[in-house]
């Protein structure tokens, strides 16, 4: 029943409940889709047995009238989430073979809600990248191709590139992602799907391999806004094991979805109109403005004056936190160990880390080490934390005059693999529109809005106030209903 892979999260959940098909049929259809799509390199590990066991439990639960919120839904799990007994690498060779003896809080919540796992999804190494090319397990290939007849392999975005490719290629109805500086939203935009980064603290970071702890936040990626809302409800919630977890009830986002934006003011930040961005990005943005007006929103021109400092701020704070977090990969407790002959303990650390980390991870650890080193801490790290305060204050000020912001998600459509990998700063610029909301901890979502001249998806981003995921989801739904985005990649793999 290949038709079942046409169904998203809510449709599967509802269909299983209504008895239109069994959860096992759904799991089998998706397992077969995953097997046929190995060329895309979206999965690092496949776990059909996990998906089938959850499906059988769902079918039994239906028989006994005991269904859970995600019973029957098989998901892809980004390889940044620790999964008990299933290899978890964070896209790095240094963790090859690591099988956590524990389950991450977010994946545990999803499984407790009845979901199953189709496998672990490929990603940029330690979530450091915007194209998936830094993965130690090879780049993910986007299911999309340009309409010019060329078959240049395209980047699915990053760092949640495996998640993006798997959802867009109909290999899973939804997936987990994580977003430190755009790693859910930019890949979602590149492959024409939806993805939301909730408010910092909504999803527990416990069991997520740490990159930059003050920014890392999990969120769902799926085919539409409703599916994202359903997944986010299951993923969110207080966890005492994460000191930054928010002790707040999880709203019923899906049931409350409402695309009527009358009474809402949507800000258009003028600093996001930047030079060198293709005209088609501006065109889609203007369409988005018209759609939100049509949904009843009032459009207001607003200013976020420190926007252009967000990326350099991010590229101090994130590498600094990474250099500290990644100090744990020392070849002693888990992962790879390289022991030079006659060498001592320090030689082992240095050889292990030299062999285990890829070039981008080393680059960021070294930048982070430098900005934290004696004599430079104030000039770099402390100054960046002050600018981060100013960026957060910009948002606080702007909420005086609007409730939400509308911006493009990324400054371009997907690029070809290899196009930007030689120039780190060109790669970093991909996240120019995504990073400010990350630095301020705000909820932000990308939804597909249209196609560029080569037939590739373009996304729009909604940013909301802290804890206003509902407002973000509602405005995203209003965009989705008007964009009528039905384009999808042809299954060439």
């Amino acid at each position, binding site marked *: 029943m290949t038709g079942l892979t046409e169904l998203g999260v809510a449709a599967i959940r509802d269909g299983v409940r209504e008895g239109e098909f069994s959860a096992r049929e759904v799991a089998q259809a998706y397992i077969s889709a995953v097997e046929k799509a190995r060329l895309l390199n979206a999965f690092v590990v496949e776990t059909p047995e996990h998906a089938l066991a959850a499906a059988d439990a769902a079918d039994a639960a239906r028989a006994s009238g005991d269904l859970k919120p995600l019973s029957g839904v098989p998901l892809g799990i980004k390889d940044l989430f620790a999964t008990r007994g299933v290899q978890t690498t964070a896209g790095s060779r240094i963790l090859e073979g690591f099988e956590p003896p524990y389950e991450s809080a977010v994946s545990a919540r999803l499984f407790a809600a009845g979901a199953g796992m189709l496998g672990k999804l490929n990603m940029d190494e330690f979530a450091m990248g915007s194209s998936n090319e830094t993965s130690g397990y090879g780049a993910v290939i986007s299911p999309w191709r340009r309409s010019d007849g060329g078959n240049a392999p395209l980047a699915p975005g990053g760092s949640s590139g495996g998640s993006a490719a798997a959802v867009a290629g109909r290999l899973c109805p939804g997936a987990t992602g994580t977003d430190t500086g755009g790693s859910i939203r930019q890949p979602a935009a590149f492959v024409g799907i939806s993805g939301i980064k909730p*408010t910092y603290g909504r999803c527990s970071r416990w069991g997520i391999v740490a990159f930059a702890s003050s920014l890392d936040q999990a969120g769902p990626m799926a085919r539409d806004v409703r599916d994202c809302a359903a997944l986010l409800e299951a993923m969110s919630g207080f966890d005492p094991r994460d000191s930054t977890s928010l002790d707040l009830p999880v709203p019923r986002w899906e049931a409350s979805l409402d695309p009527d934006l009358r009474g809402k003011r949507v800000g258009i930040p003028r600093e996001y109109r930047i030079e060198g961005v293709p005209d088609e990005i501006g065109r889609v943005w203007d369409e988005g403005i018209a759609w939100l007006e049509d949904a009843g929103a009032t459009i207001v021109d607003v200013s976020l004056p420190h926007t252009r400092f967000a990326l350099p701020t991010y*590229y101090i704070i994130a590498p600094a936190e990474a250099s500290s977090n990644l100090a744990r990969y020392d070849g002693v407790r888990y992962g790879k160990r390289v022991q030079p002959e006659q060498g001592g303990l320090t030689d082992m650390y240095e050889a292990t880390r030299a062999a285990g980390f890829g070039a981008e991870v080393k680059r960021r650890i070294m*930048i982070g080490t430098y900005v934290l080193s004696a004599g430079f801490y104030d000039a770099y790290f402390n100054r960046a934390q002050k600018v981060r305060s100013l960026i957060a204050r910009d948002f606080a000020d702007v909420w005086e005059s609007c409730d939400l912001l509308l911006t493009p998600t990324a400054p371009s459509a997907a690029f070809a693999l290899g196009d930007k990998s030689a120039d780190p700063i060109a790669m970093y610029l991909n996240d120019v529109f995504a990073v400010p909301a990350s630095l301020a901890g705000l909820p932000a979502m990308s939804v597909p809005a249209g196609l560029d001249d080569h037939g590739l998806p373009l996304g729009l981003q909604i940013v909301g106030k802290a804890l206003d995921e509902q407002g973000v989801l509602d405005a995203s739904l209003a965009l989705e209903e008007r964009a009528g985005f039905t384009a999808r990649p042809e299954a060439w793999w």
Partner: protein
Amino acid sequence: MSVDAEIVRHIAKLARIAVSDEEVAALAPELSNILGWIEQLQEVDVEGVEPMTAVIPNRLRLRDDAVTDGGIREDVLRNAPAAEHGFFAVPKVIE
């Protein structure tokens, strides 16, 4: 900010990453470029601005001072590249 080979070697030493001469030669201009680009933050007036400490206001919680974990030595050691007699094993550090 210009990063030379000597600085690269110093940072690599602090970060405990072995680097070859070739890597040092490649990293020096790369790190210089990135740090030069970051330099634009010097333009921002941060007089009187407090550095950010928590992005979303949150109260740090206290929990009871009680053992909540333990007795899982096998689990803890299971992924170790080398474990002996119930401990992590490392190269000899004391002659």
